[in-house]
């Protein structure tokens, strides 16, 4: 890459250096954690449908496995670069550590655009990727998962190829993101949304607020938002506003009803992507307001669960005085400028990194169940998730409290600290 301009791995470095300073890490630990432990780059020749052979470039980056087998997604993307993969692998290490699951971080991918490939060709890429890396991954070493433009189908092709190479022995724990019944875990759909509310519940507890009687406004009505609203309502809270994207009008709207939102009712008038039918919503007594109105509502809790960069310097001031907590269900919904404003206004921010870690935790559960070849009921999965998320919050809050850090900084501090400890305990540094 050229020296100028934005680079995702540079950004990951800067973030790491900031926390390493807070932790006062020694040089060797810094050097070890700043870069991936292992990187694999290889070529995958594939005979295309028209008979010619095309060669694809594959990656696997294992950033750190001091705490356990490394874990991370597999991306099919035409603009995959080694630096992007490195940054994302490092982020996986911290993410597993913050919820204290015994896994390291990795990421991988293939430079390709599935839009220009037939399913057969994609299958060949999946199998080719496994053939090149089979000796360096496995249930006990490195566990891939679906990511950008890869689906459960790709995971099953990969699993199959791996098991063929292993002489037909079954290793469902090789990979996660498998369909239920083929080594997948129950509860995965609910995991992220529920995880957000488990963390939120704990936050309210330390703030001394009874969830019953609180109100919230939610941005988005996708998978995460729907389950979050469901659980939050069960805790006694009332969601009075939900914003969602209107595909026909190509704008978002906020749907507000003072008496509160009923998830099943809203689901019945929304499409698969959480787009809510504006006209039907009016019929159900909702006010239809502009898209950004969700963050101006007089509520206790804001729950951005849609896109990144939604709370920004230019709109953070419009947040209502009553708001006490922002729970980041989406990835990166708050910009650094907005973060400053929230800090100044003393709004408690639950960082994405911790708050939406329910998904990765459930992936870990899938791997555990696969390795046992014994699968839990949904309730068992969700109660274990509650336990994990709750203790993760407690630990992060503890650090934030003791060292007067923001929750965001505290989450990074605790994550990097855990990895650094593991490296030291193993005698690596």
């Amino acid at each position: 890459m050229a020296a100028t301009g934005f680079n995702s791995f540079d950004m990951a470095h800067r973030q790491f250096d900031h926390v390493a300073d807070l932790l006062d890490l020694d040089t060797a630990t810094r050097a070890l954690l700043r870069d991936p432990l292992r990187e694999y780059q290889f070529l995958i020749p594939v005979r295309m449908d028209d008979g010619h052979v095309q060669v694809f470039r594959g990656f696997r980056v294992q950033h750190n496995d001091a705490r356990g087998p490394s874990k991370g997604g597999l991306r099919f993307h035409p603009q995959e670069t080694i630096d992007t993969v490195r940054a994302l692998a490092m982020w996986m290490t911290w993410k597993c550590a913050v919820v204290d699951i015994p896994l390291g971080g990795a990421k991988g991918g293939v430079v390709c655009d599935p839009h220009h490939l037939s399913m057969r060709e994609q299958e060949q890429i999946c199998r080719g990727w496994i053939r090149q890396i089979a000796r360096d991954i496995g249930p006990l070493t490195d566990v891939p998962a679906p990511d950008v433009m890869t689906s459960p189908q790709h995971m099953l092709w990969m699993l199959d190829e791996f098991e063929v190479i292993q002489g037909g022995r079954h290793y469902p724990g090789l990979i996660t993101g498998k369909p239920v019944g083929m080594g997948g875990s129950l509860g995965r759909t609910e995991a992220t949304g529920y995880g957000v509310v488990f963390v939120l519940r704990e936050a309210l507890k330390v703030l001394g607020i009874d969830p019953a009687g609180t109100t919230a406004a939610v941005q988005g009505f996708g998978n995460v938002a729907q389950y979050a609203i469901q659980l939050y309502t069960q805790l006694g809270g009332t969601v009075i506003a939900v914003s969602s994207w209107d595909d026909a009008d190509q704008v978002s709207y906020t749907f507000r009803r003072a008496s509160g939102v009923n998830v099943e009712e809203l689901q019945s008038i929304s499409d698969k992507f959480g787009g809510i039918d504006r006209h039907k919503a009016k019929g159900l007594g909702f006010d239809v307001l502009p898209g950004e109105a969700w963050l101006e509502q007089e509520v206790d809790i804001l729950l951005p669960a849609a896109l990144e960069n939604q709370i920004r310097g230019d709109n953070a001031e419009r947040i209502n005085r009553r708001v006490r907590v922002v729970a980041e269900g989406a990835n990166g919904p708050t910009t650094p400028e907005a973060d400053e404003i929230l800090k100044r206004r003393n709004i408690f921010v639950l960082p994405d990194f911790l708050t939406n870690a329910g998904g990765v935790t459930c992936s870990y559960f899938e791997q555990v169940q696969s390795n046992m070849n014994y699968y839990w009921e949904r309730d068992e999965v969700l109660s274990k998730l509650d336990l994990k998320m709750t203790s993760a919050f407690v630990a992060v809050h503890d650090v934030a409290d003791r060292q007067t850090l923001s929750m965001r900084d505290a989450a990074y501090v605790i994550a990097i600290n855990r990895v650094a400890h593991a490296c030291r305990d193993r005698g690596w540094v």
Partner: protein
Amino acid sequence: MQPEGSTDNIMLALRERAKELHCLYNVLELMNRADLTLQEVCEALLVVLPPGWQFPDACFARVTLDGVVHEPPRALRTPWVQKADLVVHGHAIGSIEVYYTQEMPESAEGPFLAEERKLIDTIAERVSEYVAQRQAPRVAKVAGASGRGAEWRVIVDFLRKTDPALVSRLGRRMLNYLSWDGILDAQALLQRAAAALAESGMADENRPIDRRNLPPPDAMTEAFDVAARHLSGDEIVNCIEKWIKDDKSSFLIEAVERQHTSLAEIQHALDRYESFAAPDRELSGAVQKGLRVSLARRLLTDDVEFVNKAKMYISVDDYHAVLHRTITPAASHGKLGGKSAGLLLAARIIRHAHEYVDTLGGIKVPKTWYVTSDGVLSFIEHNQLDDVHNHKYLEIDQIRREYPHIVQVFRHSQFPPELAHGLALALDDLGHVPLIVRSSSLLEDRMGAAFSGKYKSLFVANQGTKAERLRALLDAIAEVYASVFGPDPIEYRANRGLLDFHEEMGLMIQEVVGCRVGPYYLPALAGVGFSKNEFRWSPRIARDDGLLRLVPGLGTRAVDRVADDYPVLVAPGKPGLRVNVTPDEVVRYAPKKIDVINLETRRFETIAITDLLRAHGREYPMVRQIVSVVDDGGILRPVSFGWNPATVTPVVTFEGLTRDTPFITRMQALLRVLRERMETPVDIEFASDGRDLYLLQCRAQSFVADAAPAPIPHDVPTDRVVFATRRFVSNGRVPDLTHIVFVDPDGYHDLATQQDLSDVGRAVGRLNKLLPRRQFALIGPGRWGSRGDIKLGVQVTYSDINNAALLMEVAARRGNYVPEVSFGTHFFQDLVEAAIRYLPIFPGEPDVVFNEGFLRGAPNVLGELLPEYVHLAGALRVIDVPRATGGMVLRVLMNADAEQALGMFAVPAESVTAARAQRAVPIEPASGEAPVSVPEEHWRWRLAMAERIAADVDPARFGVKAMYVFGSTKNATAGPASDIDLLVHVEAMHEQQQALAIWLDGWSTCLAELNYLRTGRRSQGLLDVHFVTDVDIERQTSYAVKIGAVTDPARPLKVGPAA
């Protein structure tokens, strides 16, 4: 013998001659069979003789030879007998007798014709000779009368006795035939015949030549003597046979060629022709072609190209079959119209594609009845509605106002008896199947698809009693007829100077392909196919790979671009490369709704696919080939059994259809065959009921709106070229552009923070709302909308670019790395449905021009439009083209046939307003025609209304400080569907503003109604009002930037009543 003269009599006579000759051939044939004994020959004669007589069904023969009698079993002798003796060497050795079993009309010899006497005598003579030969074989050989060699003499002799005129014509033809072959004897004979004529004043060329008789029959029979010296007996017999058949068809040619014969008469002539039982192919090639051409002209079209194809594939028999299902008014001279002709030709082409019989063999065309194009005229005349013809010269708003009444009047009118009768007959033939009444007009034929869709096509459920069904069908036809006088087609014609064209509308009444699913009737799937793919979503797809737009149910949703739904796109040449890959994309861009005919309500309906599948999924044909299931984050094909669509989430993918059935192979072959044989890319409609595939329509693709190749000029000065590229070009029109949004690849790459990079996407989204709709191009590096490394493409969603007219991706080399382009895959289907064009460019490749000098050097107006993003000015450049070039616009010409696209500065044509106004309206017929000017009244009227509103507003009551108009009304680019963008500068008083909003809302509704009357475009309201306050103006937020803006500023209006 009947008196001569009438066609009927000539016909009858000819038919008899043919029968007699046929009988004679058969007898002669028997004489050549060495393997038969004499007695066997006699038995065989019993079979071949009766067909030669006038009433073969009541006829039998009896042959006596050497005392042995041959007759059919249980033959009963009657008094109606004709007899000839068999004589060998002067001795009677037997006889041939022909009996009628019942009394027949009196003729020359009892019930027998004079010719039949000659026939039986000729046969008896020939049989006698034959017997003599068999008895003395050696004599025969010496005589050298070998088999067929002498047959032609027998035939000619017979004909000379029965039809001397025919012999004369045959002789003349033989003479010509021989002369053309360079046979000197024949030429000499011809000269002799000509010499007889030459005495008259041939020298005076300006005087008509006196009409002379041809040489007498005797002279002409000489021709056969000449022929005998040069041709074999077989050849002569073959020639005679063929020419006699040609001669027979002359009446048909005459009937078709004569302009005043009605279609009914032609049909009658065809009926009689068919009754010869002489297959078409036995006519000589030239005559056959002549007939086909004449029929094509009369029934299909005058278009030479089309007739040329039609004559190769559509046989006389085919026309006969079509006419049997054609309803004509009395004395009709109409045609079937363009749509019918196209389908007819395509169907015949498929039938003739023998090399594709495996793939195309089963393709069908739904049963169709036709009403000729003059049916509408006869309908109008019958009801004294002639005034309606001048209706088209009224003002358009009056036409629009009156149109609903015309529809009602038409529906309450009577059909002429021939039409009503014919339609009742058609209903009996078609049965209770739902029908579609499709227009097939002469203008559609002339203008191609640019005109299609202007007239109505209506579905009829066709349920209930015969009377109800007929009523419904007649109503539908009346409504389709009325659509000739609808405001949209009239306006379209007026704009193109076609108002005076004599329009007629034929109809196709076609079975709707489908089957019953619950209360609904629908095809399992339907769609349209194009042999050229103008919307390639991958560099691996070639234009010739074609394109299919597939939907479940009726094809209406595939034909039109539907705003809120998507068809499934497949390139038949690369079926594995799908537009949508991730489960999210697959679900998002899957068809959600389905068009059906509800047999219970007898209506055409649009329903949700999930509802239909939930209730009736098990009855839906081929459901497992059409639908996949969403399961745990993946999209799976349903397993082969036990799948219940009522309990899983179905999503329409056609995955099974493309992977497990030969459907794609068939479509590919179909498109290829039609393209090759019609010698032009084609555009077809098809449907399947789950069992068979049906072709519903076929026409040339070059007519399809938006897809005409633009001619690329070669003499453009370099400084006027913005870009020129030669890869992945599609055909299509981009309206003239006034703005360019250029994301500089280098500037973008140098942005230092993620925030800045994502701000570029956000700024583009803002510009998308600010710049004039469909008048700007987006040009940027790498992949628009990609979620990968943000450095390699601007991160936008579809809503950030949906007003652009053109999206360009620059694959600028960076080191030794050339970024891949996306082909717009992230919102590909949105681009297709909105007709936003996509073009990648590869600077540095040979023949590629990319004028970065201009794009980087022209003034950047970003800061004026979006001051808050001025820090991005190094990466994001907004160019006001007219301002930067002294009034020119960016014109983009795309020509896929030449693989060339050119973006150049051009002086805005008169037609810019037209092109700017509305992308949704197909703008052009084929290229090369004069630009079409669209009336200016749309913006003028809007501006006048805006001024009127401003004058009427009470500034004190509503707290209005100023009013402005901007957008298309101000820019004189408003089209019939444009709204009026008003900017109102108000006091911050909330109540006043609310009252004003209500007051303006009233205006908005009224104007929408007025606009509907003028243009036929329905809208909720016509005003798009934006309020700004002092604070907004101070901060330059929202639309306040338009006030006093440097580029495209809002135009102030005079507020309040004049003092």
